[in-house]
Every structure is written in C-alpha cells, then in structure tokens.
C-alpha cells in the first residue's frame, strides 16, 4: 500500500467516520433519554437523501405524502388516547398540527417542486419534510409504551425499522439515486486530491457536534434532556415531561439523520433500504462507546469508518463482516471488566 492509497483511504475513513459519529451520538442520546435503541435511525438518512433527489429532479417526493399519512395516524392515536378528557380546543389543536401542517407542506411542495429552486432551498424543504417524521414516529410507536422494558422498546424499534423500510420502497421506489454535491470543486494537493464535498461533510459534522455540545451543556432544554437521561423520576419531579423530552430527542435524531442523508446522497447511491446498514454502523460505534458516552461514541465511529475503508480496500467482500466483528472483542472486554450495570427503574 503506497502513501497515496493510504491518504485516500484515510480521507474516506474520515468522511464515513464523520457520518457514523453523528448517527452514533444521536443513538446514544435517544437511548439515554428514552431507553429506545433506535435501529431505524438510518431510515432518516435514506429519507433525507431520496427526498432531496426527488426535489432535484423536480418531482414531488413521496415523503410529502408520507408525512401527511403519518400525521393522520398520529392525530387518530392522540385523539383516541385523550378520548376521556378531550376538549374541543385540544382536538382542534391536534388536527391543525398533525394534519393541517403536513397538508400545507404537501401543497407547498407540489407548488415549488417543479420550479427546481436550487440546492439550498431544496435542502431546507427536505429537512422540513423529514424532521417532523421523528416526533411523529415517537408519538405513534414509542410514547404509549414509554414505561415498557428496554427489550419491548427494542422489538418495537425493529418493527418501526421494517415499517419505515417498506414505506421507503412504496414512496421512493426500488431505484437508487444520487444527489448533486454541495460543491464540485476538487483541490489538488500534489500526492492526492480532496473534494470540497468531503470537506463540507467533515465541517458540517464538526459544526453539528459542537452545536449538540453547546445545546446539552448551555441551554436549559439541553439540560432537561440530560436530566431525563439521568433520572426519569427526578425529571418528572421538577416538571420535565418525559413525553416532551422524547419528542425533543426524536426530533434531533431525525434532523441529524436527514442532514447525514443530505451529505452522503452525493457521495454514494442511496436505495430505499441503504439506511439500515449505515445506521447499523452508527449503532456499532454507539455500542463500542458503551451507549453512555458521547465522545467515546464519536471516537468509535471514526474507528468504524477507518476499519470499513481499509477492509473494503484489502478484503472488500468481507468489509461489512469485519466492521461488525469488531464489536465482539469490545463486548467481551466490557463483559469481563465493566461493573455490572444497574437496571433502569
């Protein structure tokens, strides 16, 4: 392996590692706040990339219809849950936010999609369509079971993954798409070239990780999420609704997933089911970090990215196997040397 190859693989490691770091960090956050191992995280990556691809092609993305459909289901679930104590204003509020807003979004998208507004407006539109799916998914699938065991929540997460992949096939079709890059510029550094797109990915990731850090450390909202992660009962005792922290965690996770999708959509072809394997690598990194440490999860994600790049170069047929195998020694080491975990509640 010569120096150029090494540098290229290093660059590749850093890009995929950045995306996995974002996914791993949000995986840790969702787990600590809601105790859900959110397997479908990668689906937001897919939805983000494919929604942008559809908008770039001037088509109305399936996500716009999906958002309306999910909104209707969420409204029905909410109205049913509140059926004994439902006031007219609450009912109207639910219908406006869950059905009205997605319907307005659908109309806007139908109106502006054929205009091909350009990359930035299309990205904003993509986020506006994909991010609300996060809290909707929480409300429909997880909120009614919020006090269940981790195992039940995991089973539901697997079910949600299957549902979202299936819906991805229905709404985006079986073809793969690639989006255009933020920038086509390529820098020639002599022994290697660096695309501006890869710099964008790394810079966006760094900015998002810093923003998350500031959010958790400096804002009261961020502190309420940390508090709910440390003690759900303590959080309720100071008026923090665990429903609200759940929405917030799922909104953040959908946002980060969708942004990741926007970033990698131009680097690789995304199919309706591509998100799963991407999310799973974020999951591996989260596990390597012990599911409770953000810096460890981010560092482990860079390791996962590196292992993936180098194994796809030297043993491409086994690349996924090698990546998923690194979890075994870590689990073994943890089971031998970590103190027994206390059971949550």
């Amino acid at each position, binding site marked *: 392996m010569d120096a150029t190859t090494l540098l290229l693989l290093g660059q590749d490691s850093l890009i995929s590692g950045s995306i996995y770091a974002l996914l791993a960090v949000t995986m840790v956050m969702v787990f600590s706040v809601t105790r859900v191992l959110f397997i479908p995280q990668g689906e937001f990556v897919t939805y983000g990339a494919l929604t942008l691809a559809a908008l770039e092609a001037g088509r109305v993305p399936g996500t716009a219809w999906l958002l309306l459909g999910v909104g209707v289901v969420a409204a029905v679930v909410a109205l049913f849950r509140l059926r004994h104590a439902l006031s007219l204003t609450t009912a109207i509020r639910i219908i406006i936010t869950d059905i009205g807003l997605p319907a307005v979004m659908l109309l806007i998208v139908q109106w502006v999609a054929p205009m091909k507004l350009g990359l930035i407006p299309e990205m904003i539109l993509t986020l506006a369509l994909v991010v609300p799916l996060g809290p909707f998914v929480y409300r429909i699938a997880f909120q009614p079971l919020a006090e269940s065991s981790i195992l039940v929540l995991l089973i539901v997460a697997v079910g949600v993954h299957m549902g979202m992949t299936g819906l991805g096939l229905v709404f985006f079709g079986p073809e793969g798409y690639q989006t255009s890059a933020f920038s086509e510029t390529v820098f020639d550094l002599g022994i290697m070239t660096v695309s501006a797109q890869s710099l964008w990915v790394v810079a966006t990731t760094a900015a998002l990780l810093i923003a998350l850090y500031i959010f958790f450390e400096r804002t009261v909202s961020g502190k*309420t999420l940390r508090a709910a992660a440390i003690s759900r009962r*303590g959080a*309720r*005792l*100071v*008026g*923090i609704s665990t429903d609200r922290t759940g929405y917030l965690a799922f909104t953040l996770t959908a946002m980060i997933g969708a942004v990741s999708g926007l970033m990698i959509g131009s680097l690789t072809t995304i199919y309706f089911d591509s998100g799963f394997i991407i999310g799973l690598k974020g999951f591996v990194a989260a596990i390597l970090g012990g599911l409770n440490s953000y810096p460890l999860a981010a560092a482990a994600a860079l390791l996962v990215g590196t292992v993936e790049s180098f194994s796809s170069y030297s043993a491409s047929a086994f690349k996924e196997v090698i990546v998923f195998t690194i979890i075994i020694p870590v689990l073994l080491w943890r089971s031998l040397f970590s103190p027994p975990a206390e059971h949550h509640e």
Partner: protein
Amino acid sequence: MSLLTVSDLSVAYARIQAVQGVSLEITPGSIVTVIGANGAGKTSLLNAIMGLLPAQGEVTFRGKSISRSPTEKRFSFGMSLVTESRDLFTTMSVRDNLILGANRCARREIDQRIGDVFGRFPRLRERRSQMAGTLSGGERQMLAMGRALMARPQLLMLDEPSLGLAPIIVREIFQIITVLRQNGVAILLVEQNARAALQVADYAYVMELGEVTMQGPASQLAGDSRVIESYLGFGGVDANQN
C-alpha cells in the same frame, strides 16, 4: 380553605394494599406530619399524592381535582416532592440541578432564585460546581430541597428528610423547615423521627399498616401515651435542641 385535600386514597401494589382509604388535609402555611413505622405506607402515600404511583381516591389541590394529572402537571400547579432517594441528577453540577428545578423560568429569574437558595443553604454555594453525586448525604438533602424550592412551591412534601443524616444536619434541616413555614410554604413531612417531626408540626397523622390510626394537633399527639410508647420511646433527635 385547605391547600391540599386527600380523600379516601388507596394504593395497591399487585396484591399488597400499601395505603388504605387515607384522608388528610393541609392548610396554607402549616406543617403537617405523617409518622409511622417502616412499611406503614407513608412513602407510598406521598408518591401517590405527587402522581408517581397510580392510586384510587381523590386529591384536590387549591380547590382543583388533580387526581388524573401527571406528576409534571402537579408540579406546575405548585407542589414539590423531595423523595427519600432524593432523585438528584447525579452527574450534573449542583448549579445545573438547581437550574432544572426552575426549568420553565427565564434566565434572570433562575439566577435570582439560585441566589435565594444559596442564601438558605450556604453550603450549596460552596459546592456549586461540584457533581451532585459527589455530595455528602446532608448536602444531597439540601440540594434536593433547594431544587424543589427553585419552583417556589406552595406545598413542599418531604419524605424522610432526616434519614441517615448526622444529628447536627438534622437540626439544620428542621430549622429550615420552620423558616419555610414562616415564609408561607405549607409542608407535608413524612418522618420516622417522630419526636423531631411532632415538635415542628401543627397537625399530625399516625399511619399503621397503610391506614391512619390516629390524628390530631401535633402537641396533643406528642403527649398521647400510645404515641409515646410506640414512636417516642427511643430518644430521637430533638428538633430544637441547640
């Protein structure tokens, strides 16, 4: 008018009846204590009043039924509970714990209330950057009370505030309880240290096996032979002793 009215409250765990038809009442700015042996159902009673446990019966706060409200709603109506386990955010700083106690307030208001709490518990000011999990037992109790006070509650419920604390800290905590009452905060105090509790309280209930078996003005119960025999026999810490 009473601040909190509990009528015919029952709590059951699977097949065990922890609280059976308990009724009690607290007027604004008074201290009411519930004493009883370990396992009498005192903690379950408090947790049910705060909505942490499903219960049957009626709970009314400031004239409004809150029986169906979740804990966080009850908190926003003006009641706070300091649990026996304190439920602090152990890996966050003392200051962050206090900030979360008033998480709906504006920054300036939060800072002012933190100043008030530090005034009441100077030790917390010294420890403000320390992780809550590294505090001593007494400091944890002070932080839990301080966090509850950040919301400026009208009713503060304390579950075993003296449990496991050194006598000098216990006296400090009880002194703060009486000061809070002077500031108009009503207090529902659950204690195994019946002697100290009866000294500060206006009214007292005695719980045995999930039921209220005796009640009356605290000074009267403190002189009751059955109470003396069952709960005051051992010299507990005296609340006013200096």
